[in-house]
């Protein structure tokens, strides 16, 4: 049992700290660590310069080759974790957490053609081009493989090889209204079995065949969209992998560093915010909620789940460093975080009391926003039970892959 990083990594930590002291001035960027940047805007000057320096030092985009703008470091989960801890401690910007950097870049590194890597990776990780993800459709949610959007290769006059012509509809498409490109799944062989006829295509968004309509979410905000593809086109070679291999390409097992395994920083952040809210908000008899015995007990009940998840994460990290399995634990992480966020939301509306009658944007335009801002988390926690694999799909995965129960349900990625 050893929770220390050892002298080599502590020396590395000192290097990272010295780098941050030299290069990062908290005033240079206003966004806190981990918050990333919205899709659709390039880095502002200071942040871009800082990220360049961090890449040169080997701290960011460690799995991306230097020729594509990364720092090309050998995989080392502990170094990645030290970097994350130190960058977060001073709120220095880390990698962009855009769909492009999180999903497309690793996919291109695994399966992309050389020209695709050359053209797309560097501008994606610097934020100069942005992406949206065209997977879900109105009739293909959890059962993604039943998607109906088609792409047909039409031999044309102009370009050699012709163009893909795409028809169909995508939905829940975050940032589609501001993205430059979409990576999408479309059926290219209608006669092949469900998963065999799908291809992975890259498509420019700025063309007449694409119409983006914003969808309003339960929060009242519009962060995702419907995308209608009516004879949209893309180049014949803008396909990642071979035709019909799109399902496998989309499920490419990413060989990126596993520093985020079982990460509880989001749960910690929410929990600390909740405790601060309980300190600041009057409860029974006008005393702060934090003094209420029952409230303290409820807070500690959630803290128990956070601690379980924290040490489950350390166990998973340690096992991955040794290339040993950690059983079903890795399959449980998502539902654990979701459950924690939902428990926190349930406590938050009790603390809010009458403030829960207000929208998270506040009672009146222009007036200061009080504790009602928590109503955003209240709704957002529900989104995490749906997005990126609904909790019931997670339960299927835990039961069938983790506990060895019969596989009647076809799981994503199979």
């Amino acid at each position, binding site marked *: *049992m*050893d929770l*220390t*990083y050892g002298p080599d990594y502590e020396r590395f930590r000192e290097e990272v700290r010295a780098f941050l002291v030299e290069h990062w001035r908290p005033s240079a960027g206003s966004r*806190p660590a981990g918050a990333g940047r919205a899709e659709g805007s390039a880095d502002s000057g200071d942040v871009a310069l800082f990220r360049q320096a961090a890449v040169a030092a080997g701290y960011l985009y460690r799995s991306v080759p230097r020729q594509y703008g990364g720092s090309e470091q050998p995989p080392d989960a*502990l170094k990645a974790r030290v970097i994350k801890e130190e960058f977060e401690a001073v709120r220095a910007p880390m990698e962009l957490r855009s769909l492009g950097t999180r999903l497309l870049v690793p996919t291109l590194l695994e399966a992309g053609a050389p020209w695709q890597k050359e053209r797309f990776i560097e501008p994606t990780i610097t934020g100069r081009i942005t992406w949206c993800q065209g997977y879900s459709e109105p009739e293909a949610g959890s059962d993604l493989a039943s998607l109906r959007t088609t792409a047909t290769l039409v031999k044309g006059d102009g370009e050699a090889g012709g163009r893909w012509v795409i028809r169909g509809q995508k939905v829940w498409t975050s940032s589609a209204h501001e993205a430059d490109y979409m990576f999408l799944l479309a059926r290219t062989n209608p006669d092949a079995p469900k998963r065999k006829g799908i291809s992975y295509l890259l498509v420019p968004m700025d063309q007449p065949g694409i119409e983006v309509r914003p969808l309003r979410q339960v929060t009242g905000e519009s962060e995702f969209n419907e995308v209608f593809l009516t004879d949209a086109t893309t180049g014949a070679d803008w396909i990642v992998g071979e035709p019909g291999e799109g399902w496998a390409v989309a499920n490419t097992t990413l060989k990126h560093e596993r520093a985020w395994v079982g990460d509880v920083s*989001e749960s910690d*952040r*929410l929990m*600390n*915010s909740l*405790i*601060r*809210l309980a*300190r600041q908000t009057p409860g029974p008899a006008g005393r702060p909620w*934090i003094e209420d015995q029952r409230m*303290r*007990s409820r*807070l*500690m*009940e959630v*803290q*128990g*789940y956070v*601690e*379980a998840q924290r*040490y*489950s994460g*350390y*166990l998973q990290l*340690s*096992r991955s*460093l*040794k290339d040993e399995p950690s*059983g*079903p*634990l890795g399959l*449980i992480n998502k*539902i*654990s975080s979701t459950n924690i*966020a939902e428990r926190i939301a349930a406590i*938050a509306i009790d603390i809010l009391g009458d403030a829960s009658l207000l929208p*998270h944007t506040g009672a009146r335009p222009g007036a200061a926003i009080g504790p009602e*801002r*928590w*109503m*955003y*988390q209240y709704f*957002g926690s529900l*989104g*995490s039970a749906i997005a990126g694999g609904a909790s019931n799909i*997670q*339960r*299927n995965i*835990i*039961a*069938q892959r983790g*506990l*060895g*129960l019969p596989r009647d349900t076809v799981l994503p990625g199979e």
Partner: protein
Amino acid sequence: MDFDLSAEQRLLEQSIDSFFTGSFPLSRVRECYDAQLGPLDDLGALHLSEILIPDAYGGGGGTILDVAVAAERLGAACAPGPFLGRALAAYALTTAGSDEQRSRWLPELASGQRRATIAIAEPGGRWSLDALQMGGPRLTGEKQHVLAGDAVDLVVVVLADGLALLELGADGLTTVDTEVLDRTRPMISVVFDGPDHERLAGGADAAERVLQLGAVLVAADAYGGAAKCLDLAVAYCQVREQFGTTIGHFQAVQHQLADLAADVLPARGMYWYAAHAMDCALGDAGGFASLTKAHITERYIAAARRAIELHGGIGYTWENDLHFFLRRAVFDRAYLGPPELHRQRRARSQLAEAPEKARANGQLART
């Protein structure tokens, strides 16, 4: 960074598991319920209660994590006997005894010639040090829920102001047998009317650490039991057929089992850390032990109940073994005080006036 058991600790797990598989299956645990439990000499020969006694006195010279790992496997096996009482008494004498007391008692405990247990609770659900009334030079009153059986003949008494050691047959001491819900943990009441006793050198701090170790060991037992309930439920759902197929095919059943796994399995590292924090005397060890005890014993109750439900009618019979686990889960939840008591204890250390690390300042609730 290696937050994991050592090779030696994995061997310890395996040796305990193979002992129970070979010599002490649940059919023998059943003797607690359907007959008189025979001698536990073969279980005692594993010397698990003596892991914490230093080598110099003939003990195992182990760590708190070692004994916690043993407690987990005993929990998974529903092992009967006063292991918990003996391990806590051994720890009390090891950490709170004077040199003279250690030399006098520890070799006898290590060899099994003498067997000590621990007395904590006073009537009215008084488990925490600040609620205990016994203390001072003359001991009068009652200690309840004292783990007994397997020829226990000494008792370490947790007092408001420290620890005392007595022989169970001493003048001024009356023992009263009690019926218990969890028959794998026989208990007695002990009534004190000013018996002769010796104080251990350590004071209230030492007594507090004994209670912390108790919380860690009960949590470890509860993890072992809860994970075993999950295993038993999964195994049953793989063989029980209804509607022409095994019930493990049904999504409702799969989701109940998945939720149970998500509830129980991540908690293993939590008791590991609680033990490790005591081994390293980390600052939050006491509060963390309490949080762990509250969390995992509640998971155990939920696991045992859900496992019985998934077994259907057969799960609700005396002949099925699952009720051993539910009874044990109820013991683990109540012994040393209920989850509420332990959460309030952790709340006092975590929610003290110092504000939380304000990393999240300004980005309050945006996820």
